[in-house]
């Protein structure tokens, strides 16, 4: 670490005037960042970590923030400047040149109508005196540096032709175009799959070594912190609650909030619920489930290819059991869940719920059959109708299926359900916007329980929640299962959460189940290469177990899209151990 810090922030406060009055997003935050150092800022939603990042770029005023304090930056020329007082011209020279930023959404941070080469060379031309041709050449070098295969060919591609991981690599290349002295990364891997996240984290670390820049890494994920940071600042409600070097922070957290945050992080290897109690009746049996989506092209809607979203999936679910369905985005896990509800029509296969075959049922019979299977969705902000009161939302299934009940009886049931999920009965008359994300998810759970279903399909029910709230919701789900004997199909991309919830786990990839078995078996003794890779990619919230840097070239994720008539190869599942099945090639 050098003598004087690269960036020195003193008493940074940011506030916003809202309809509800002044909101202080950041309160008197002070910290130093040395050249070449990696500092992580962790916190849950609303902790002010992103606002801090935007304040350093002086982009927060555009969003309506009022700032005060000092932000001293040592410039490349050697002089120092107070970012707070700098004029627009100076700031423009600094942004993108000395301080760069990567955002969370690689999907929206790139301009969709310009080619990758054009966008990259734009940044280069802006800050360096060079011709467009030289800039394009430089752009290719940058893409190679972020290990994008066939960099020259990529320059003429548009963002939509690339996967999320590739786009994030392009964003990083763009941010590094001018060899910044400070890179601010705001949740750069949150929107990515774990395997891609592992690649991107390794890449950022490698590049940091090459360029020698300081890195400010904003995240909510303690596992990612452990992988990347030298020093950590924990924020809550706009205040810094703790600052420490990485290892001591994890080993001996001083502030109770840090302790709570660390305790709430689900760790892979913490064990799963025992399968002992589960040997009851089968409530759901899926055999040979297939869902194909046609890809059409042209005016005549000619089918040019088929996306085999779900390909020959079979499993059973027993009473009171949780089957975890894990996989990366696009692997068909959500499609499977929705096909079970017949929210989308399965192409082939049979689905038996509580002894009743539901494929082929007419609308009326299907409505009746849905009493037995309910669903919880990922985004608690979107899964409750904002215009309906909580009572109306929770009682809706009752109003549809149990018409014999009076309004008063339904209200009583709803009140009981709310209390059951840890809310109050008098919350019935409120509206969704009055609740936090965790509370809304509780309401969604209450709604799913209204009909006393035998099965609940939970599609990423905790992914949108902060860690501390995530733990509470998981506990609630497990408690409800113990009491009511409901079976869950628990769909998630988060291995640690799946481990905590599930008795058995099924790993999906490209529409097929690769491995299925008791959680302890599959997660501790994975057989399939993909399962192993998936498990190895999960960031471990323990700095002592930081993974060695392995830089791969970016892999394009395979697509389950095949020409019409061609089918993906199906390999039979082979039992390798009691109840542990693996696709044949890995057995």
């Amino acid at each position, binding site marked *: 670490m050098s003598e004087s810090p690269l960036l020195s922030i003193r008493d940074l406060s940011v506030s916003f005037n809202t309809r509800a009055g002044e909101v202080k997003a950041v309160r008197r935050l002070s910290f130093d960042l040395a050249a070449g150092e990696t500092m992580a800022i962790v916190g849950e939603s609303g902790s002010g970590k992103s*606002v801090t990042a935007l304040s350093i770029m002086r982009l927060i005023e555009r*969003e309506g923030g009022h700032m005060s304090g000092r932000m001293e930056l040592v410039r490349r020329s050697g002089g120092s400047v107070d970012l707070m007082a700098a004029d627009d011209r100076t700031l423009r020279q600094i942004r993108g040149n000395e301080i760069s930023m990567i955002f969370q959404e690689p999907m929206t941070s790139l301009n969709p109508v310009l080619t990758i080469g054009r966008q990259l060379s734009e940044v280069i031309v802006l800050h360096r005196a060079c011709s467009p041709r030289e800039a394009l050449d430089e752009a290719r070098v940058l893409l190679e540096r972020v290990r994008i295969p066939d960099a020259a060919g990529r320059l003429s591609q548009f963002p939509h032709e690339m996967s999320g991981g590739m786009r994030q690599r392009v964003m990083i290349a763009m941010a590094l175009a001018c060899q910044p002295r400070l890179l601010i990364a705001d949740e750069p891997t949150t929107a990515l799959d774990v395997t891609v996240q592992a690649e991107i984290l390794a890449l950022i670390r490698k590049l940091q070594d090459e360029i020698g820049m300081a890195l400010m890494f904003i995240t909510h994920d303690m596992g990612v912190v452990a992988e990347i940071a030298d020093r950590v600042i924990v924020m809550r409600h706009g205040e810094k609650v703790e600052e420490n070097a990485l290892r001591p922070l994890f080993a001996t957290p001083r502030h109770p909030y840090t302790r709570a945050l660390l305790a709430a992080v689900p760790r892979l290897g913490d064990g799963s619920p025992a399968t002992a109690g589960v040997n009851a009746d089968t409530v759901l049996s899926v055999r040979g489930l297939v869902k194909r989506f046609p890809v059409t092209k042209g005016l005549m809607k000619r089918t040019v290819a088929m996306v085999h979203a779900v390909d020959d999936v079979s499993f059973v679910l027993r009473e009171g059991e949780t089957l975890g369905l894990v996989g990366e985005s696009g692997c068909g896990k959500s499609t499977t869940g929705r096909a079970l509800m017949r929210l989308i029509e399965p192409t082939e296969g049979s689905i038996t719920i509580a002894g009743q075959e539901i494929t082929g049922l007419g609308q009326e019979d299907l409505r009746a059959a849905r009493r037995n299977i309910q669903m919880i*969705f990922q985004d608690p902000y979107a899964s409750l109708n904002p215009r309906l009161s909580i009572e109306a939302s929770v009682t809706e299934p009752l109003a549809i299926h149990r018409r014999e009940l009076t309004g008063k009886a339904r209200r009583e049931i709803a009140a009981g359900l709310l209390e059951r999920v840890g809310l109050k009965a008098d919350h019935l008359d409120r509206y969704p916007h009055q609740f*936090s994300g*965790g509370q809304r998810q509780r309401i969604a759970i209450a709604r799913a329980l209204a009909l006393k279903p035998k099965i609940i399909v939970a599609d990423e029910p905790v992914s949108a929640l902060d860690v*501390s709230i995530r733990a509470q919701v998981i506990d609630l789900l497990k408690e409800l299962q113990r009491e009511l004997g409901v079976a869950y199909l628990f769909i998630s991309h988060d291995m640690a959460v799946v481990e905590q919830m599930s008795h058995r786990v099924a790993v999906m990839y490209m529409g097929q189940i690769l491995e299925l078995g008791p959680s302890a078996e599959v997660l501790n003794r994975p057989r399939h290469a993909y399962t192993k890779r998936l498990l190895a990619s999960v960031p471990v919230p323990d700095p002592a177990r930081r993974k060695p840097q392995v830089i791969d070239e970016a892999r394009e994720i395979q697509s389950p899209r095949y020409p019409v008539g061609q089918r993906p190869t199906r390999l039979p599942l082979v039992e390798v151990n009691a109840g542990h099945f693996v696709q044949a090639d890995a057995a």
Partner: protein
Amino acid sequence: MSDVADKHGLPTSLSSIPQAAVPMHDAAAGPDLEPAQARAARFRPDPVIAIAALLALLLIGAAVFAPLIAPFEPDAQRLLARLRPPVGFERADPRYLLGSDQLGRDMLSRCLYGLRLTLLIALFGAALGLLLGALAGLVAGMVGGFVDALIMGLCDVKIAVPFTLVALLVIALAGASITVLVCVLSLAYWAQFARLIRAQVLTIREMPYIEAARAAGATPLRIAVRHVLPNIVSPVIVMFTLNISNLILLESALSFLGLGVQPPTATLGSMVGLGRDYMPTAPWVVASPAILIMLVSLTVMLLGDWLRDHLDVRLRER
């Protein structure tokens, strides 16, 4: 900031600023807004709304009680008292408060009767258009497929064909009467309503809460009425209020072409249209109905905005 905020497509975070006020540990308690206080806040009179409500009452009162208030018959001519200016100006006749027009008719009386007819035509025309468009848009959006293509095709035809021609044809066939006029005017904007509503339905239809309702076993009708409709009212109300002003103008255009309300019956639009020749010498002939049109549009728009905010539960209790 939160991954939650980004589900709404915001690259960074700032939409979630108000969340800073939300407690992190969400246990049972929740944001305990004092209900009484919240209710008081909801009914706190907004001065702009109070004025708009007062204006609305005045305008409606004037329209409804026009026969009682008007000092003259609206069509009674007195050629000796032509183009008298309003009271307070030189050459004014004290009997004609707002002056008289080119045929010596009392402006005040004509304005009152004109307002009556204009409100009737515009409100019913817009309401009927909304009903037609809402039905078409909702069906197109919810059913999709061939029905959607058909309805949207009709919309395109409607927008492609000059409306005056259609109006001419309908009025030529059905005759010129107030009922026919209202029906014709309702045809003027149904396609815009249908398109707006269809677009809204298509967005809302993909929301997880619609899927949740389907999973709960709700019928398409229930989903349309209970889940989709309440969530699309905001833009529809705004469009409805804009429509009323448009219809007032359209009606005057039709009257000018001789297709609307037949002279000597007064509507605000036709009064402006017929008075335009006298603008340089007798501006009051145009001014009074024009100001009334403006007041009507303004009131409708203010009330529309208030209604939109009031119907939105998210804004109601702040």
